[in-house]
């Protein structure tokens, strides 16, 4: 039986041969790592793969390729992202070929020891947190599916890190975040990796007026991350790419989780579930809760 790697390569080759797409967005492996890659019909497809280190949310590359006919591998993270992008009219779905895969859950690289054998392990302790909450392991919206469908384990509930931070009293929480934020070097990797940060110009680049200072400092950094979280309110699909790519290891997605959870319970938001939901902050209900208003 063909491996998923072989099936994938054959499928993509066919897409190019049948002239269905101009680019394919997938993962290739080399030097023991798995990278996202944009392939054309002239590319060498032999490195094309999908494995437990196919971390990146490929939808982050879509703005660059807008307008092209494009195939891409979609695990649940991309599926939900595409739904949000579609709702925001950032997507020409008819130009996309969504290639579905059975997602075996991504490994958290920070939990991975040097022993690569662990890659095959099915120990949820090694998974990324998002994968433990995942509701769907097979791409339901796929135009074509490669590999064998797999069953989806019962999703874990709760937000372990968020709950851990929340359990601290306010002063400790402030101190903890201040410490985290004093590490931030404002490299904006979080923004770059985020598939929903697609503004041509980010608010931090705006200098007329410069609401947010560009200089590094715990409070400035915190405010940058807070505003980013607000811009993602009801939109963030919790792919955790922002945290994974952070070079100094700040779990920035905890801020997003605060709003994800709050907006789900207050307004019933489940971002990325369908392609219709408008972003939470450009919608309202007349009887939205307002117990916080004087």
């Amino acid at each position, binding site marked *: 039986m063909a491996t998923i790697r072989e099936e994938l390569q054959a499928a993509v080759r066919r897409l190019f041969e049948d002239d269905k797409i101009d680019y394919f967005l997938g993962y290739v492996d080399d030097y023991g790592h798995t990278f996202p890659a944009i392939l054309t019909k002239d590319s060498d497809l032999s490195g094309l793969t999908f494995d437990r280190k196919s971390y990146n949310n490929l939808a982050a590359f879509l703005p660059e390729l807008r307008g092209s006919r494009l195939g891409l591998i979609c695990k649940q993270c991309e599926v939900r992202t595409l739904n949000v992008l579609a709702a*925001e*009219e*950032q997507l020409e779905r008819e130009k996309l070929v969504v290639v579905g895969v059975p997602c075996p859950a991504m490994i958290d690289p920070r939990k991975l020891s040097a022993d690569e054998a662990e890659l095959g392990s099915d120990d949820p302790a090694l998974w990324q947190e998002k994968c433990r909450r995942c509701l769907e392991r097979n791409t339901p919206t796929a135009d074509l599916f490669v590999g064998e469908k797999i069953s989806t384990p019962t999703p874990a509930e709760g937000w372990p890190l968020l709950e851990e931070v929340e359990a601290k009293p306010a002063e400790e929480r402030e101190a903890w975040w201040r410490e985290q934020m004093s590490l931030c070097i404002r490299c904006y990797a979080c923004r770059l990796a985020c598939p929903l940060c*697609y*503004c*041509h*110009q*980010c*608010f931090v680049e*705006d200098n*007329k*007026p410069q*609401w947010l200072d560009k200089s590094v400092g715990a409070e400035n950094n915190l405010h940058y991350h807070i505003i980013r979280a607000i*811009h993602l309110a009801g939109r963030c699909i919790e792919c955790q790419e922002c945290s994974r790519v952070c070079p100094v290891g700040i779990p920035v997605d905890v801020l997003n989780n605060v709003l994800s959870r709050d907006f789900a319970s207050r307004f019933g938001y489940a971002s990325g579930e369908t392609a219709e939901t*408008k*972003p939470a*902050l*450009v*919608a309202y209900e007349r009887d939205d809760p307002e117990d916080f208003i004087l």
Partner: protein
Amino acid sequence: MARIGVFVCWCGANIASTVDVESVAEAASRLPGVAFATDYKYMCSDPGQKAILEAAQEHRLDGLVVAACSPRMHEPTFRQVAAEAGINPFRMQMANIREHCSWVHADREEATAKALDAIRMMVARVAQSEPLEPIKVPVTRRALVIGGGVAGIQAALDVADGGVETILVERTPSIGGKMAGLDETFPTLDCSQCILTPKMVDASRSEFIKLYTYCEVEKVDGSVGNFKVTLRKKAKYVNHELCNGCGDCFHKCPYKKIPSEFDYGVGNRTAIYVPFPQAVPNKPVIDRETCVFFKTGKCRACEKVCLRNAIDFEQEDEFEEIDVGAIIVATGYDILEPAEMAEFRYGAIPDVITGLQFERMSSASGPTEGKIVRPSDGEEPKVVVFVHCVGSRDENYKEYCSKICCMYNAKHAIILKHRIHDAQAYLFYIDVRAGGKGYEEFWKRACVEEGAEYLRGRVSRLYDENGKVIVEGQDTLSGEQVEVVADLVVLATAMVPAKGTEEMARILGVSTDKDGFFNEAHPKLRPVDTATGGIFLAGACQAPKDIPESVAQGSAAAAKALGLLTKEEITREPTVAVVDPFICTGCWNCVTVCPFGAPEKSEITMTIDGRKVTRPVSEINEGKCEGCGLCVASCPGNCIDQRGFSDDQVYAELGGYLERLRAALTHE
């Protein structure tokens, strides 16, 4: 560097007794960008204004800060002064040191410090204020009136009287509305049709009124002064140019048993029909849904009999785009479908009817020629129960009072007595609301002179027994349960917005209230305006109303429309939003949030890295922008700004205050 003049007003003792105006002016003169500062007893007085003009010239000022009362009080005054002084009025700001300061703070030191802060903030703001010119828009001298009931007819007549062309659109085949179907009217018992039909004829004959019946508003674009409206002229299948209204066609129509909408089912009509004999225009239309020819392809009886060859089965709906400067909405009301209130068993018991059905029955030109009968057996009813507040003032249905029912119930009781002398009327009421000229006397007359029996209480249940309708209810005055064995029951059902009001509101971009009626701009002071410029309201589409109120509102809306349409051009505040297309991503947040539809989806083509790229961008329609700034704050990429309330201005204002704090902090 800006050359700003600061003028601190004493407002007599109103400011000066609490704020040390002299030292404030002195400190203000040392602020960056300030070329001159002074204080004066009354800045708004003639000498005060003159002082500003002189100082502006002497110190070559290019901006003004007037520290005085609230801008809600004197902003227009000082903008005028600025303009006279050759300074752009939008580079004048008022620091509110009276309402927000001297009048609410007693401590002189604190109030003085706060006043200086307010000035500091406004100086910073003026330094960042760009000169703005009011937006001038030419006005299309034509009005649209939607709805040809009495309110719409009155509005159209009054606008036309001002010599302005008016298009009156009515969706049914005739104008006249609900009033055309009424019998006599309270409190004078004038015959409704006798007073309405002359107005209908006037409207059809006026050289300034264009009548579009059987026509609906499909789309409204544009804004105050310049609306573009698309009308759907529904196919009538009768060429009204050729038709002379002889009526041969509907006499020959074989299909005669269609419940008449105009008679609320009390009478029937044919498939080709004129809704009522006094209709304007008095020419028929074919109802496609019920016409045998459209169903089976056979018949053509009307076509055969028409000597003028006016029947045209090939007609199709036509669309026409018109330009108008103002829109008057007079779409009227409907009644709450009584079948929705199961306890009244309307529909299940034939002798339970609505007030409007009673009107058609008692109307001399109605289907029974004025004879009041029981629908079940055609007999004359001797005991008639009138139920007030059916669905009104009822937390299970509509909480509001429908306002007209108390009066028309009294009228019905009187009419009943006039037509059937030995009949007895019972009226179940909560309380009688008779606020209006002659109204109180009128219902008293029903009660005292005409012998109507008023029972204070609600009806709990109706059911039929041996051909009678048993009405159970409570008489709260005696505390007894009562039971009336009635021949006929008439329900005064709640007035609700006309069907399609919600859709109309969406098309017009105006809001509705919790009950679905159109929202006026201010419940007291702007009762016929909507929040959208150039769109006015008349009649029961805004709330339940009787005839005189509807007519008064029709005239009021006409006056408002004329006030607008007699101008050559209108000016709008230039404080509108503006998009930077080069950084706009086209996320459409602005399009989604704007209550006025000002941001529009557009495209821009630009060259990036030598490639021509077309990108979706938002563009603000200045004619529609009301200047709320909601889009500005909803744009994640800060691509939108608002003139006159720009980010730079707010930032400067904030900075004007906070820089002082920062200075204080660094000296800690």
